[in-house]
């Protein structure tokens, strides 16, 4: 089983790529198939983009904390930024007719589609802390 990871990342797109790769690799080691791993990777990418771009606004002075906790039956990923946080209940539904043609705002929908549990709360630094859990189904 892969080990726990707890790391601080810069607020840039390279961090998005590396976080995604780290999580996909951990998912593979836990036995998730390629499609499920890709789904999880996309969810992590979307959460990281939210943290880097919307939370920390690419600030070189702000970090994103990434925590990976592999378990026998799941992979738990926590991503925390130093932005202002957000209320999940106040995020517009991108599939609603009035939002359908917007050029953005679909990331949270994809995260919620591709993980089994998704929670949002205020991070210790006051920003958003999102937790994604993907179940590992054994044969």
């Amino acid at each position, binding site marked *: 089983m892969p080990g726990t990871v707890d790391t601080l990342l810069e607020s840039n*797109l390279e961090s*998005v790529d590396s976080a995604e790769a780290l999580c996909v690799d951990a998912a593979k080691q836990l036995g998730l198939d390629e499609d499920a791993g*890709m789904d999880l990777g*996309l969810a992590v*990418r*979307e959460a990281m*983009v939210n943290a880097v*771009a919307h939370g920390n606004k690419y600030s070189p002075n702000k970090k994103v904390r990434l925590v990976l906790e592999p378990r026998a039956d799941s992979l738990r990923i926590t991503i925390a930024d130093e932005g202002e946080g957000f209320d999940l209940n106040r995020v517009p539904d*991108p*599939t609603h007719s009035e939002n*359908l*043609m*917007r*050029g*953005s*705002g*679909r*990331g949270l*929908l*994809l995260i919620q*589609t591709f993980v089994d549990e998704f929670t949002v709360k205020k991070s210790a630094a006051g920003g958003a802390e999102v937790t994604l859990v993907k179940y590992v189904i054994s044969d």
Partner: protein
Amino acid sequence: MSATITTRQVGDVTVVDAAGKITLGEGAALLRDQVRSLLGAGNLKILINLGEVNYIDSSGIGELVSSFTTVSNQGGQLKLLNLTKRVHDLLQITKLYTVFEIHDDEARAVRSFS
């Protein structure tokens, strides 16, 4: 694999062949720049071939929507060709599948432009 965007002319339709990753940063920006450039040159019939796009995120999807809107607002038409299963599924999830005119045969797609 990073993104590549190339164009070719088939009659009066411009086919945009996209490949690789269409994500925030390089891929989505490349697609946006290409579509804006085509519009600037007066090309109003645009067919985006996504057959070699193996990965797209919400920014890439958003760029397809923005491009569709921009082209439509200028009196043009933007259609999609050869969706991979992954792109197809994401357009279903985001309920955009019925927004775009989608084809799986290039010759028919080209003929469909008015």
